[in-house]
């Protein structure tokens, strides 16, 4: 094993943390006053304050979900979370102006480098707010709006007011209520009619402080006939106490538009990752969720698509890797609300070292939506006998003219595969890494190459030092 790899086998490559130099830090715990203070601090219009307060009240009344990993969920101590932390007074447009300690973090994560090479725009969020933001000039000239959500609300209040919370109402679930009450940061992206954004735009989310709660809010609107690929990455330091990441992401694909939203979530294993992601696809629009979950303590995330217009298409490709002490409860939901809509769901999960992965899916075809087609494939790979995989698929099919397929498989790495690869010069760990990368290949091939390479490296590292 190389020294490099050895060094990284502290389990988690991004587990470093930098000194915390906050300019504003709220006391831990959540009250209506905290919610009002956040809104006031951000100088928000009254309607947003009202939404926040209404959401807070709903959050307090709403019981915890009674499904999923309840024992882990009930361990969340909402009173021990910092709900707002400002680490820089403004969002910079040049990396040079970002405070050194924060810039240092993003340098180590390779973000400025990636931006120069292959991105159309970047938002970097540190704790509660964006510290850096940029977009290529040519995109701006075509009318593309790419801002952090706070700036989006300031500069385009009418668009935000029109769409905010329309895909995911605050009352959707306890965590969407929490997010709507205390949201901060996230991305606001608008693509004008007919504009195709060729290079992916990226948002990077970093939690640095202990017991931090990060509640970013993202709204993406692709106007008629436009297309965009949005990529998000997430990491956090490894602390012995828990952090909470609870985002809400709303996508709106107008007629004939295409949105691809790719995530590589690699939170440290002390982070609760409870995220609501949902899209609306209008006539002949396409929405693709490409969702990779490698890190976190508990992830509960089920990217959804409402196929509202005839001919709309949804694609959800997800992978989950559940290692020691991790539970990845992930899946996909597609609602066929119009005729001749189509969807593909591919879910791949790996459980290792006692980790648990669950697929939870919903496929709905309403009685009036005729001629729909859908295919769901769930594959689970279990690497040892301590680990676990479950599948909870739900199908509600309202008519007989629709065509649905569902396939599920659970497999183990065979000794024949290991022996074969080892006889070709691969160590047991390398062999495991190859098998795992191969298993995830249908997912990684959908990622921009730089991400795919990174993900493969990550998985290879996960395989190292852990085979006895």
């Amino acid at each position, binding site marked *: 094993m190389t020294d490099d790899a050895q060094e990284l086998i502290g389990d988690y490559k991004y587990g470093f943390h930098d000194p915390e130099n906050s300019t504003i830090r709220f006391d831990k715990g959540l009250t209506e006053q905290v919610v009002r203070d956040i809104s006031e601090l951000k100088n928000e219009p009254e309607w947003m304050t009202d939404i926040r307060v209404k959401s807070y009240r709903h959050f307090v009344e709403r019981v915890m979900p009674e499904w999923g990993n309840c024992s882990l969920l009930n361990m969340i101590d909402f009173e021990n979370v910092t709900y707002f932390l400002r680490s820089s007074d403004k969002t910079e447009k040049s990396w040079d102006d970002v405070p050194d300690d924060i810039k240092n973090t993003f340098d180590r994560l390779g973000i400025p480098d990636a931006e120069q090479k292959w991105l159309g725009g970047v938002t970097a969020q540190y704790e509660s707010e964006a510290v850096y933001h940029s977009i290529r000039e040519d995109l701006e000239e075509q009318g593309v709006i790419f801002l952090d959500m706070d700036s989006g609300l300031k500069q385009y209040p009418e668009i935000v007011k029109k769409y905010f919370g329309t895909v995911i109402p605050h009352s959707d679930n306890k965590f969407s209520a929490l997010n709507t009450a205390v949201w901060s940061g996230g991305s606001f992206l608008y693509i004008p009619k007919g504009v195709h954004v060729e290079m992916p735009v990226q948002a990077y989310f970093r939690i640095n402080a202990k017991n931090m709660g990060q509640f970013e809010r993202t709204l993406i609107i692709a106007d008629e006939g436009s297309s965009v690929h949005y990529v998000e990455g997430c990491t956090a330091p490894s602390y012995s106490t828990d952090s909470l990441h609870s985002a809400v992401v709303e996508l709106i694909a107008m007629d004939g538009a295409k949105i691809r939203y790719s995530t590589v979530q690699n939170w440290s294993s002390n982070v609760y990752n409870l995220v609501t992601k949902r899209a609306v696809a209008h006539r002949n629009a396409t929405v693709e969720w490409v969702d990779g979950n490698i890190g976190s303590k508990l992830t509960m995330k089920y990217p959804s698509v409402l196929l509202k217009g005839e001919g709309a298409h949804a694609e959800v490709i997800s992978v989950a890797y559940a290692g020691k002490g991790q539970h990845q409860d992930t899946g996909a939901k597609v609602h066929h609300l119009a005729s001749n809509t189509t969807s593909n769901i591919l879910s791949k999960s790996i459980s290792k070292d006692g980790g648990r992965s669950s697929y939870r899916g919903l496929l709905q075809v309403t009685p009036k939506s005729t001629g729909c087609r859908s295919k769901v494939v769930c594959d689970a790979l279990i690497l040892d006998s301590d680990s676990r995989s479950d599948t909870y698929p739900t199908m509600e099919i309202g008519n007989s003219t629709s065509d649905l397929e569902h396939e599920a498989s659970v497999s183990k790495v065979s000794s024949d595969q290991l022996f074969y*690869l080892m006889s070709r010069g691969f160590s*047991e760990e390398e*062999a495991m890494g190859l098998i795992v990368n191969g*298993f995830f290949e249908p997912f990684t091939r959908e990622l921009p190459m730089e991400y795919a390479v990174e993900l493969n490296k990550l998985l290879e590292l996960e395989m190292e030092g852990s085979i006895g």
Partner: protein
Amino acid sequence: MADEILRIENLHVSVEGTPIINGLSLTINRGEIHAIMGRNGAGKSTLANVVMGHPAYEVTSGSIFFKGQPLEELEVFERARAGMFLSFQYPAAIPGVQVGTFLKKSVASVRENPPKGRAFRKELNAAMEQLSMDKSFLSRYVNDGFSGGEKKRLEILQMLLLQPHLALLDETDSGLDIDALRIVAQGINEVAENSACLIITHYQRLLDLVKPDYVHAMIDGVIVRTGGPELALELEDKGYDWLEVSA
């Protein structure tokens, strides 16, 4: 002077407590081709697998040496890196791993001075051409959905690229039509020139194309007779019963 590659001394092997190989000895020098023939269940494949280090096979007594070094100290991948190669009877499929990537990584971990970049591609192209393999092979997943013949060709392709000192060929001829057999045999002959070769087979037909220096008849986990190529013909003709009597 003979350059000894493989030496097996009084080897006993069990699988889950059942003895399969019962006192087998064999020495193979560089440049020699040995063929082991025997009925199903005689222990031929066990021999190939145990030499390569399959964990399911237990060496209960005896020793195996590769270039003078006792093999029990070496893990499977270390054996491969030392220059041992097994062409599998049933190669495992590795879904999602492309043949091209796999070959490149394998060559990089096994060969001492592995060719890189353009040099590797050149070597790869030449070997594939020799085996009449289409370029499209490289983007397929390793053995995934391959026909029997395609799997065997991929095994031989790996052998050509890995340039082993010892090649163990387990039933490489099964599932090949005559044209494919000819192509595969040509590959084996090329590698055999500079290495030690152990061919495990049921049939004479591969041995028409790859001339063995020695033929061993195996019954119940021991070599009961050793001869030249003529022994293979005799076995094909008479079967094994006559040896059983004399054993």
